[in-house]
């Protein structure tokens, strides 16, 4: 599943160090190219169920056991555990599709929660002008926000501190019928 270049012992140590130092890490071409292609093509067939609370979020929830299985697998958990430096405990997973008019907003519910989050992105193509960036920022608004652009087959791990909030930037009309899927995991 995971791109072999990321499972090399020395590389894993480098990823772990980067995560430890920055509080986040972003890996491109995360899973094997062929596997990614197949997975993306299968998930493209699933529209999902619309989930919308206007002052909080808008997206489609996808119920996909195959994707969820990949990110709940022993191999993935082993890799994740090595990067975050601890055994991966209880994980919650969600799969969401974002297209035109979708977004999530910063919400008080996130305040005070400290957890490890990871997300994996699937898309045929994406242009930064279409919106959709995944953004992490601190309560006081000081410091640089962490911005994860939408890139297919990219994987990010974030140490979400108590004073951090996140949102997915509104996807605008330039996206047309294009969309992307985010597999998001949360670990206490």
């Amino acid at each position, binding site marked *: 599943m995971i791109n072999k270049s990321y499972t090399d012992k020395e590389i894993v140590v480098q990823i772990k160090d980067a995560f430890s130092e920055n509080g986040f890490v972003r890996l491109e071409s995360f899973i094997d190219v062929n596997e990614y292609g197949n997975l993306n093509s299968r998930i493209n067939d699933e529209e999902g169920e619309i989930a919308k*609370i*206007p*002052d909080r979020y808008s997206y489609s929830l996808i119920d996909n056991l195959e994707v969820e299985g990949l990110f709940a697998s022993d191999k993935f958990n082993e890799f994740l555990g090595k990067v975050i430096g601890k055994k991966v405990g209880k994980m919650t997973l969600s799969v969401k599709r974002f297209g035109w*008019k979708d*977004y*999530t*907003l*910063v919400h008080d519910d996130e305040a005070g929660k400290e957890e490890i989050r990871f997300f994996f992105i699937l898309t045929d193509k994406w242009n930064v*002008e279409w*919106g959709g960036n995944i*953004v992490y920022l601190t309560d006081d608004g000081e410091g640089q926000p962490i911005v994860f652009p939408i890139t297919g087959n990219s994987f990010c791990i974030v140490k979400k501190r108590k004073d951090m909030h996140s*949102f997915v*930037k*509104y996807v*605008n*009309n*330039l996206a047309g019928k294009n969309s992307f899927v985010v597999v998001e995991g949360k670990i206490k």
Partner: protein
Amino acid sequence: MDFAKNMPFPHLLIESFLGEKEAERLALALKKEEFEEKDSDLFSFKQTQDLHYSENKEIKEFVKMLESREFAERIEKISGIKVKKGAFDLAGSLYENTDYLLCHDDELEGRKIAYVYYLCEDFSEKDGGALALLEDDNGKPGKSGKRYSPKWNSLMIFEVSKRSWHEVEEVIGKKKRYAIGGWLH
């Protein structure tokens, strides 16, 4: 004119708010102001500085009109809500293609009435940029109750409360949605 009875929450659109020439001069003046990009999870648009500080003659006259006792009295008469004479915020806004303001209620201490005075050409459905007023669903925004596409020289006013859920739909295409807006306290 029935501000209080309009649903999903009290509001009113007043058409031909200023004289045609006056509105045209003000629109030209607004376009000369400097607009700064505003961007967050909730919005993406351009905004001027607080127009109280504008040096432009036309804008100063508009501010003076908003500060007048007559304006406060007119608003009170329409809305039944008492506003303090001369206590208001105002800034120019510009929404272009892909700009938007997502759902929120505007509520902040002291704000009684929100206003938007449109200084752009009429927008149609396909241009986006409509002000959508949403129904309240037990303290949360519900379905869209009423939508108003921007209309030249019209003033929209609505009561600010915990249930005044509204949004500016994304502008689609080349039209520029110029307006002056803010809150009366």
